[in-house]
């Protein structure tokens, strides 16, 4: 341990700590510009200069890269240190007068104007080198460096040309303290950070705010480490050493007695309805995007704002986008009415906007739902009954200028209306998840006409599939809200548990049987069974069906050339009798 004095205060710090760290511990504020905790100090800006009395000498030293030593007497705001700091700041101001953090420090130090000549009043780069060091140390790309000398010194790629070494990670912009480096999507290329609901997120993140478990994951596609082998900033800042970049994806095979399929849904892609303008006009958003916008941890901190940062004065919520529409999905997605009402309520709470709700029918079927609708009616939401035909920016009057115009037939008024709003929210419906068809094939699940998984019986077996031991829960079986999903999931879990608790499986009663007194062992049937339930017993000269493996399709029975096998409940005689019976009438 090292003991030293900071502004007269005794401090003990770890061996190898810098004076800056010691000062921080002592509670002294030392301004910095070119310093960043995850990047090696470089002492380029010299704003952190302090006066140090040590071994009989009195020196001005940069605190960010000078090691704290036993017996040092540091004064962070001595007259001499401040004078030096002011001079440094004044010179930096002359170079980069537009750099905001620099101006703040200048203000703190009482500098109003630099005495030195200003070359470019809009210059922001203070040549701190954070970007160069980040690109080298963190990203490992070494795409940018300092170019030229003296007053011409600046940061650039080699020869100022587009660099192939650049991976577009934008780390340089991220570390730039003054905003001198900006990122633009010049070629429509995607920057490395994923676009996700109204804004970029990071390569290491918690998937959603309500994620269970509440644990971040690394998006390998976006992570710099998996591109260059460097960075690992997340591991450096994690004091629990929880971040492990060496973990590999593993495929685990799990033997299970029963399977519950809860593969959920995806929302309808609003781009499929071009007339609604989604993706063309900035202030048309989907329900999911609105959820993100209105979320307190969202990009606007929960404020409902337009693309230009203003609060909307009128908002339209459009129901049944992709649902109840023969061109897209004929079914009702069941949840949109209620979440739309919730949106209307939240909008009323958070903004002063006029709220329009465009609906076909208000479907408030659940407990307390109808009451909520009535509450909204009282809150002053304007309900318009009719399907929206189009959202356009084509203004007919001056009032409509710059607005989104919702064209709708108000079926209660019997008139076509044009309603100008600032923001339109599309209540997109549900459709089966992306992997739905693959799952259906894997598990041999039938789909109903609406393409959702088909339950064994709509009333008597609503959570079972047609395959034993495979159960369905949630929206993979059909659109439903959270209470219904929870109820169905509970039932599916109970069915699975009941099967586990029973400890035995009920066999298919409709199996095929071979009468060994009649079977000649011709083996026609053996190769026909997809479940390998039939074996030929060479010594006994006949074939046999394993009851536990037989699923009861009866293919072997139909194929048995000597009629030695029969299918329980579907014997030849029974079917012949059925055929005869039909022609009795």
């Amino acid at each position, binding site marked *: 341990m090292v003991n030293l004095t900071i502004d007269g205060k005794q401090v003990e710090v770890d061996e190898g700590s810098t004076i800056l760290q010691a000062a921080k511990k002592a509670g002294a504020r030392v301004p910095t510009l070119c310093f960043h905790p995850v990047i090696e100090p470089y002492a380029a800006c010299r704003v952190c200069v302090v006066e140090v009395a040590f071994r009989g000498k009195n020196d001005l030293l940069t605190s960010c890269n000078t090691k704290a030593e036993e017996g040092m007497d540091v004064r962070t705001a001595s007259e001499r240190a401040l004078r030096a700091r002011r001079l440094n700041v004044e010179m930096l101001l002359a170079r980069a007068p537009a750099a905001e953090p620099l101006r703040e420090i200048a203000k703190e130090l009482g500098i109003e104007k630099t005495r030195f000549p200003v070359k470019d009043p809009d210059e922001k780069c203070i040549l701190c080198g954070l970007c160069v060091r980040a690109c080298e140390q963190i990203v490992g790309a070494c795409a940018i460096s300092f170019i030229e000398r003296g007053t011409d010194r600046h940061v650039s790629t080699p020869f100022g040309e587009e660099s192939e070494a650049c991976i577009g990670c934008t780390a340089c912009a991220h570390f730039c303290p003054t905003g001198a480096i900006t990122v633009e999507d010049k070629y429509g290329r995607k920057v490395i950070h994923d676009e996700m609901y109204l804004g970029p997120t990071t390569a290491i993140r918690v998937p959603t705010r309500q994620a269970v478990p509440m644990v971040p994951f690394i998006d390998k596609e976006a992570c710099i480490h998996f591109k260059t082998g460097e960075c690992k900033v997340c591991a450096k800042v994690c004091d629990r050493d929880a971040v492990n970049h060496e973990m590999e994806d593993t495929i685990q095979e799990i033997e299970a007695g029963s399977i519950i399929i809860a593969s959920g849904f995806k929302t309808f892609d609003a781009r499929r309805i071009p007339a609604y303008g989604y993706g063309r006009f900035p202030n048309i958003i989907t329900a999911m995007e609105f959820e993100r916008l209105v979320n307190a941890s969202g990009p606007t901190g929960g404020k409902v704002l337009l693309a230009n940062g203003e609060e909307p004065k009128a908002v339209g919520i459009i129901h049944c986008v992709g649902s109840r529409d023969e061109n897209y999905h004929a079914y009702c997605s069941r949840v949109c009415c209620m979440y739309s009402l919730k949106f209307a309520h939240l909008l009323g709470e958070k903004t002063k906007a006029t709220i329009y709700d465009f609906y076909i029918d208000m479907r408030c079927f659940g407990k307390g739902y109808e009451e909520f609708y009535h509450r909204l009616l009282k809150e002053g939401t304007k309900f318009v009954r009719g399907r929206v035909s189009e959202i356009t920016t084509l203004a007919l009057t001056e009032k409509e200028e710059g607005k989104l115009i919702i064209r709708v037939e108000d079926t209660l008024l019997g008139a076509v209306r044009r309603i100008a709003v600032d923001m339109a929210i599309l209540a997109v419906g549900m459709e089966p998840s992306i992997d739905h068809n693959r799952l259906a094939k894997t598990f041999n699940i*039938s789909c109903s006409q609406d393409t959702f998984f*088909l339950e064994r019986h709509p009333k008597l077996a609503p959570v079972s599939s047609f395959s034993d031991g495979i159960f369905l829960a949630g929206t993979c079986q059909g659109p439903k809200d959270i209470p219904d999903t929870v109820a169905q999931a509970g039932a599916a879990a109970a069915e699975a548990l009941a099967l586990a608790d029973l400890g035995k499986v009920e066999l298919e009663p409709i199996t095929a049987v071979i009468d060994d007194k009649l079977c000649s062992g011709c083996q026609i049937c053996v190769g026909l069974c997809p479940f390998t339930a039939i074996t030929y017993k060479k010594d006994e000269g006949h074939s046999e069906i394993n009851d536990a493996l037989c699923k009861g399709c009866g293919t072997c*029975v139909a194929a048995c050339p000597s009629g030695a096998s029969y299918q329980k409940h579907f014997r030849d005689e029974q079917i012949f009798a059925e055929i005869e019976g039909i022609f009795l009438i």
Partner: protein
Amino acid sequence: MNQEHFEPRLIGFLCNWCSYTGADLAGTARMVYAPNIRIIRVMCTGRVDPQFVLKAFREGADGVLISGCHPGDCHYQEGNYKAMRRHKLLSKVLEQFGIEKERFRLEWVSASEGTKFQQVCNEFTEQIRGLGPLNLNGNKGEHHEQRQA
């Protein structure tokens, strides 16, 4: 039999998982289709023994439909392929028996295709109406015919 008053009698062997459910869907959806078809449920089209088809024709069917899951979708993996092979061979044999191959039809109707089932029934009924009654009475064999040329 008067052609104009001819109502085809059709028998359909439907697999439990796809076509029978599809027919059920057509029913629960209150779809209207030709009432000429009588349905016999089997677990899989693979269970349909050619004997059933012959029996149906012999008993008086003017047409026989076998309908099951689409290829690749069989609940029992491949029963419908066996049905397909038997259908092809039996159709050929039926022609040798003087029974037009149009009278013996194989269709794939999934559990969600109530509309397709409706369409198949209507189409098949109309097709058989066009072909006229099968009239296999001469085959019944109660006794010789003693026809004089």
